């Protein structure tokens, strides 16, 4: 866990070669007019490459316009370990907050999908690689508990480089905390849809991300527990083509479906409709 925050620098920054109005597609190397990309939900019209997007852009693409009501936005992490590596964690964290105008790596709240109200949490890879610290864990847990109390379905969109190592054991324990909250949500007979986008790795994968009644991934997303480099180092072997990508996981029975970004809203709405519609067969 956590191995990834070094390895995966957000693509959009890496590929900022043509500054300003243009963006280079890491899938097909074409240079694309940014406005076109934005209109296309940051998916390359040529090759279908799904760019990483911010939590705010993601929410816009997923729920009914204006329906998102944010909750617990002011929760942020502390630095209980007083952790320093090449930089102090508290400084690094402050920079991330300043740059993102977010307090941590996810937004949570309620929103509508069609006629269905849902609790929703959306992670943001641009905020410290979507790493899971105590603030993120707390927000996911609060949202899950809110969903349980209000008998709402829950949607979590995950993207993460893994644990936030700078919070040490507190980071690890967020896996336990969120999973326990989801156990209660499930026990109440409520629906949890887990949406996985590129990349979802480490501790986030090994906790709430994999606990959906339905698990959906965007195409070609890297989804794993241990990252490819760690595995290569361990087994000293080249990894198979497509290893740990969405389609690979689908084939191996781990996820339910691969859904492109443009169809994600409709798919989620369909599932919520299916669960909420009509009278239930037997009461």
């Amino acid at each position, binding site marked *: *866990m*956590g*191995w990834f*925050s070094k390895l995966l620098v957000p693509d959009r920054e890496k590929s900022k070669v043509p500054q300003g109005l243009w963006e280079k597609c890491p899938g097909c190397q074409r240079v694309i007019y940014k406005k076109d990309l934005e209109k296309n939900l940051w998916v390359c019209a040529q090759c279908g490459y799904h760019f990483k997007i911010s939590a705010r852009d993601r929410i816009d693409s997923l729920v009914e316009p204006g329906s998102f009501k944010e909750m617990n936005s*002011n*929760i*942020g*992490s*502390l630095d*209980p*370990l007083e*952790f320093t*590596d*090449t930089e102090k964690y508290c400084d690094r964290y402050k920079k991330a*907050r300043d740059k993102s105008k977010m307090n941590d790596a996810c937004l949570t709240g309620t929103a509508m999908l069609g006629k269905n109200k849902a609790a929703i949490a959306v992670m943001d890879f641009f905020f410290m690689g979507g790493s899971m*610290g*105590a*603030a993120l*864990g*707390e927000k996911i*847990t609060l949202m899950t508990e809110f969903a349980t109390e209000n008998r709402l379905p829950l949607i979590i969109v995950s993207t993460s480089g893994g*644990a936030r*190592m*700078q*919070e*040490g*054991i*507190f980071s*690890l*324990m*967020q*896996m*336990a*905390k969120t*999973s*326990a909250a989801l*156990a*209660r949500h*499930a026990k109440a007979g409520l629906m949890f849809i887990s949406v996985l986008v590129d990349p979802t790795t480490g*501790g986030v*994968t*090994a*906790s*709430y*991300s*994999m*606990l959906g009644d339905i698990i959906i991934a965007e195409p070609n997303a890297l989804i*794993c*527990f*241990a990252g490819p480099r760690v*595995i290569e180092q*361990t*087994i000293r072997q080249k*990894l198979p083509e497509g*290893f*740990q990508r969405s389609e*690979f996981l689908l084939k*191996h*029975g*781990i996820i339910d479906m691969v859904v492109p970004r443009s169809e994600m809203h409709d798919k989620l709405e369909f599932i919520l409709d299916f669960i909420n519609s009509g009278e239930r067969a037997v009461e």
Partner: protein
Amino acid sequence: MTETLQANLISLEEKLNEIDSQISKFKQISADEGIKLNEVVEILERRKLQLLDELDAWQKTLIARHKDRPLACDYINGIFTNFTPMCGDRHIMDDHAIVAGMAYLEGRPVVIVAQDKGRTTEEKVLRNFGMPHPEGYRKALRVMKFAEKFNRPIITFIDTPGAYPGIEAEERGQALAIAENLREMSQLAVPIIAVVIGEGGSGGALALSIADRILMLKYSIYSVISPEGCASILFRDAGKAPLAAAALKLTADDLYGFAIIDQIINEPAGGSHRDPKSTIENVKAALISNLDDLCRVDKNELLNGRYKKFRNMGVFCSFDN
């Protein structure tokens, strides 16, 4: 690289051994010659404790991984009677990184689920150095559900570098297997005690540690990532593992201070491998007293307590944006 870092521990052990042999030499002289050398012995004993007090996180990490450190099977054999293994995940394989079964703890029927790294080379290979595959976690969960069905408390022993990072493990849902254990353990309606006896490596350790009581041996560690991994990612130099070990706050003392664990179990000076028997006795006593406590708790209270325990883990703040 780990070898040069290990030198650290070896020199410590040499020093300890030297002091020990001096102590026994002086004791011998004292006995033979009838001379009172108590003072000398006392000084040496104090020096020894001082050396151990000064143990840093990295040295403790090395002790936690010490090749002679007692393993789960040593605790199982030393503490319980009639251990009867249960095998298999009922699907793919019997993962030997996980040892599980029924046993008695001073007459109390309990279910054990443990990680064992293996002692000999053969055992190490058989047990995959204590790194479970998804099937190991599923075997563990199956046995724990068995315990719940028959209302038997669960005792887990934690000692793993982490869940195995391999192709098949990923193909067969390593992340999912761990996640399911986290979710299911939080709801198991029997008392659960987890004992970290060596290395509590990340999610692979957590997947057996959703317990009502988490106990840690004095020189064991429990961490979100190995010091080496942390060093190579955050410090950009795997050689800085000692630095990372300190930064991660992964010792029993640290975690007790953070209220992540409930109790530190004492080990003999220098580590349990220097006196396995006394350590095993300490663990046994701690298990009995915690188990007796937990068995008095009503089921709902138990589950609510477990939920709150993990619910409250994490330090965060509220910004006024």
